[in-house]
């Protein structure tokens, strides 16, 4: 299984078309290996991105330097997956 240790899901609220464009450019940055759960389409809609641990600092600096508000939706993806897995195993045992 691919591990997602330290990966976070960020919820981003864009305030302008300019910020939307910046997020769309982020989508093109394949090196960051971002996983867009909700894509940057409209300034009316939130954008959710799973950010690999290795890219977290880069992405957060990018957002902060462009004054793009965000919150951490999932602090550690692997923790949630581990809980999901243990729930499944407990159910199987039951």
């Amino acid at each position: 299984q691919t591990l997602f240790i330290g990966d976070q899901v960020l919820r981003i609220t864009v305030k302008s078309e300019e910020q939307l464009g910046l997020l769309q450019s982020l989508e093109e940055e394949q090196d960051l290996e971002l996983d867009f759960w909700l894509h940057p389409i409209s300034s009316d809609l939130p954008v959710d991105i799973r950010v690999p641990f290795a890219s977290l600092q880069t992405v957060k600096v990018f957002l902060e330097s462009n004054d793009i508000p965000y919150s951490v939706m999932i602090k550690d993806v692997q923790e949630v997956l581990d809980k999901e897995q243990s729930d499944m195993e407990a159910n199987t045992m039951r």
Partner: protein
Amino acid sequence: ERNSKSFNFGAYHTLETIYNWMDTLVADHPSLVSKVNIGSSYENRPMYALKFSTGGDKRPAIWIDAGIHSREWVSQATAVWTANKIATDYGRDASLTSLLNNMDIYLMIVTNPDGYVFTHTGNRMWRKTRSRISGSSCRGVDPNRNWDAGFGGPGASKNPCSDSYHGPSAHSEVEVQNVVDLIKSHGNFKAFISIHAYSQLLMYPYGYSCNDVPDAPELDSVGRSAVKALSSLYGTRYQVGSICKIIYQASGGSIDWSYNHGIKYSFAFELRDTGRYGFLLPANQIIPTASETWLALKNIMEYVRDHPY
């Protein structure tokens, strides 16, 4: 797990467990439920739809599919719960009974079986099919960008490494082609409902175009009624609208194809939540999600039953 009465609907399950459970459902309700093998996936797994029918030949039918995007686990889990609900409520719920005395329901619980298996064995975040792409090291096509409806247009990617890759051609994915073949060969589907997650939306065509479909006012009204029913259980809020207007332009989607194929009542759900867990919705929300979604599904199906065309 072989006993359908002890099956835990409030848990996520592997494909093998779901398929085994489908057999027990059929065994428990042999006069109502049958399993239809609509073909095989890219990795040669069988693709099963559950057919709920009280008889007749090619009665007007309702299609419901779940799990076309493999990582949206609450979709498949909701479909399992829904299958059990239909089977157990027939003969008890007057409205559902009258519906099934006039129409058939086809329910495909895992529309992307290869992807679903891969989410359990390789990468929980996998969304696409598992097909190999000529000339690329990346695998998989977004099966909800692969339908012959505005194929290759805005909102789909031509990059095989993208999660929204539309594929080399329309219906290139055997999983999509299998559904298309069933719908076409049956020829009497009146509704086509696709279940996704997340965002709490009920959508109707189009996704590939932002122009209103001719039936938009009616579909909007049906959608709003369904969402009202859904919200009555726990107060969960849903938005209603065309795919393009409510989320974004997305071409090659299933309900655009079904609508263009003549299935007027084409809808897509995006289930819970709106941004706490996203694709990782905790299992303790499966039953509440399925229960509220059932009210919306039933509302739509009743409307379809009462408005023949």
